[in-house]
């Protein structure tokens, strides 16, 4: 009887050790991120987005948020929480967006915001991937017979305040020895109205936003987007510095959406591909092999859930910018002459 007890005890100890070792192997991937912990505890991602701009973030007729930036919020929630609907959207103006992020009111800022040196250093912000390559574009009435930005000497342009745009115009004017007058508006509604009425000769913003502005005009066909982009405006997600693992997850959500496009995985075919996948890259991406998800601090099905929830990058671009008639240009995949490329999944 005693020997039996000994045997049981022995077995228990061995089993415990095996279990412990097993657990410590799993703990190699134990990712420590205060932001991720807070989101999981809350059960909801708080995403700072634009207050309303077609293409990037806007509320549709039923009050539901739509847009490329919204798709990213949903993708992050799908990856981390397993449910793309667990997102609370906070509309932020260009003035307050960074303060709201710095103060911790939002977890991530995906608000068509240009990533710049000053914001990366002085403002203490980290970059979570570049989801939109664009530049500052101009839109003018066709009746003005203007074909190039250089011909805008003496013209008045409506612009939103609190952005990098004002500086770009002034610098462009200085460099080309012309004077472009600006009229600074706080909200797009009044700026659009002023452009429509003819108070200004044109409207300027990032390429995507100008296309959105054109779609908001009474007669979009009367407006011409000039071919020149006078600046580089590379838009992307912002996080706070000091929580690297959170920033890394946000960045790889972007690369997951690109990787899906490269691999030809779409929202529609992801389930079929998962069932029959033999390609090791595809199997790794969908979490059938490798531990990519665990390394990031989520489970291995994260990328599958992203594609299932929102689709790949190209699908989202076509869905939100197709109606604005904005060609993909720089935002085409690198394989097709664009600048968008997923980092290697290794």
């Amino acid at each position, binding site marked *: 009887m005693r020997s039996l007890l000994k045997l049981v005890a022995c077995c228990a100890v061995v089993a415990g050790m095996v279990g412990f070792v097993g657990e410590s192997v799993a703990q190699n991937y134990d990712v420590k991120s205060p932001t991720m912990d807070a989101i999981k505890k809350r059960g909801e991602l708080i995403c700072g987005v634009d207050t309303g701009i077609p293409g990037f973030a806007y509320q549709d007729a039923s009050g539901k948020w739509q847009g490329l930036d919204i798709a990213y919020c949903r993708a992050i929630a799908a990856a981390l929480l397993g449910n793309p609907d667990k997102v609370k959207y906070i509309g932020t103006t*260009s*003035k307050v967006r960074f*303060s709201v992020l*710095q103060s911790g009111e939002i977890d991530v800022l995906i608000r068509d915001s240009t990533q710049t040196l*000053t914001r990366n250093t*002085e*403002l*203490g912000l980290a970059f979570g991937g570049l989801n939109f390559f664009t530049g500052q574009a101009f839109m003018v009435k066709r009746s*003005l017979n203007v074909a190039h930005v250089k011909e*805008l*000497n*003496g*013209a*008045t342009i*409506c612009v939103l*305040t*609190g*952005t990098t745009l*004002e*500086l770009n*115009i*002034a*610098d462009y*004017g*200085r460099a080309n020895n012309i004077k472009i*007058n*600006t*009229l*600074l*508006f*706080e*909200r797009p509604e*009044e*700026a659009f*109205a*002023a452009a429509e*009425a*003819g*108070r200004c*000769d044109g409207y300027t913003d990032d390429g995507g936003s100008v296309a959105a502005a054109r779609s908001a005009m009474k007669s979009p066909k009367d407006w011409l987007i000039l071919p020149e982009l006078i600046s580089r405006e590379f838009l992307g997600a912002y996080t706070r510095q000091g929580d690297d693992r959170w920033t890394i997850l946000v960045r790889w959500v972007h690369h997951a959406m690109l990787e899906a496009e490269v691999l030809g995985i779409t929202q529609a075919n992801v389930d079929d591909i998962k069932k029959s996948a033999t390609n090791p890259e595809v199997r790794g991406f969908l979490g059938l092999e490798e531990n990519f998800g665990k390394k990031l601090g989520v489970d291995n099905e994260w990328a599958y859930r992203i594609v299932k929830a929102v689709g790949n990058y190209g699908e989202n671009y076509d869905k939100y910018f197709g109606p604005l008639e904005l060609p993909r240009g720089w935002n085409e995949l690198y394989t097709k002459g664009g600048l968008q490329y997923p980092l290697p999944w290794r």
Partner: protein
Amino acid sequence: MIRQPSRRAKIGQWLLLLAIVAGGWLIVENVSENLARKNLHFGFGFLEQQSHFDIPFHLISWTVFNTYGRALLVSLLNTVLVSALAIVTASLLGLLVGVMRLSVNWLVRNIALCYIEFVRNTPQLVQIIFWYVGVLQALPSPRQSIVFPGGILLNIRGLYIPDAVMNPGLEWLSWLALALVVATPFVWRLRVRGERIGSKALLLPLLAVACFAAGVDQVVYPELKGFNLAGGTQVPPELVALWMGIAIYASAFIAEIVRGSIEAIPKGQHEAALSIGLHSWQRLALVILPQALRIMVPQMTSQYLNIIKSSSLGAAIAYPEVFAIFTGTVLNQANKEIETILIVVAIFVTLNLLTSMMMNWYNRRVALVER
């Protein structure tokens, strides 16, 4: 010790003071700790940096090479300009409507009533945007400007007034003209051998016009050039919309103050004025209003302060006043949130305290001196 009420009160006051100081210290400490955590540094040195942005409407010269400090001055002048215009307009309009409100004529009385109720019961921002988008943006494009006599043009880009270019060397004549105009009200009150100069002083402005005209070398008329009109002085629609929006809104409140103050004058004053044979407007101008003014002034002060604060609504319609420029462009460009907000707060507090001081001085002057 705490049984004595006076002691208790003193202890209470000291505790309150202590709590306020501790609270203030906590705020300062918290802010500086948060700034340090974000690697931000507090300071006003950025005011000397080049600004690199354009301010569309400026009373003094402005280029992109100027500093943030100059931007502060430019936008401050814009704030002062629109506030001053709105205060004068609101006072005159308010006085008119307030007196109309007491008219014996049914129609006049009720027009004033409708005006007041309509204006003061709609949001101010809505009114400003109405003036800007609804009224001024309905004007024609620069190519189809409305032409007024004297070469004045009106279109959606604003009101364009011809510029008079002074003959170099004769510029002192324009300063003389200005001095003559400024001197007029003072000369009006002067007495020569016991007799008031009075309306004879109106010769001075005429003389001023003559002086000015003598010094003018050429007149530059606004004309279409490229996208816009060039030459002449432009009054931008943003200024007019903000000015109208603020002045009309405040005039409704001022009208009610005027009405209340007039009604507060004892009936005996009306009757006394009537009995010495004064006309209705004489009764108003010589007897009633001077007395009503005493009651009005303190309430008018708070209306004026409201007007100055409302000027910050200009941000909505692209009027470059200090709030729009500093908490919008400069805050974003210089990344100095706390500093820019502090500057804007300090500016509004200073402007309002100055206005209060002037109004209090005036109040003491018109107040009834009891002997």
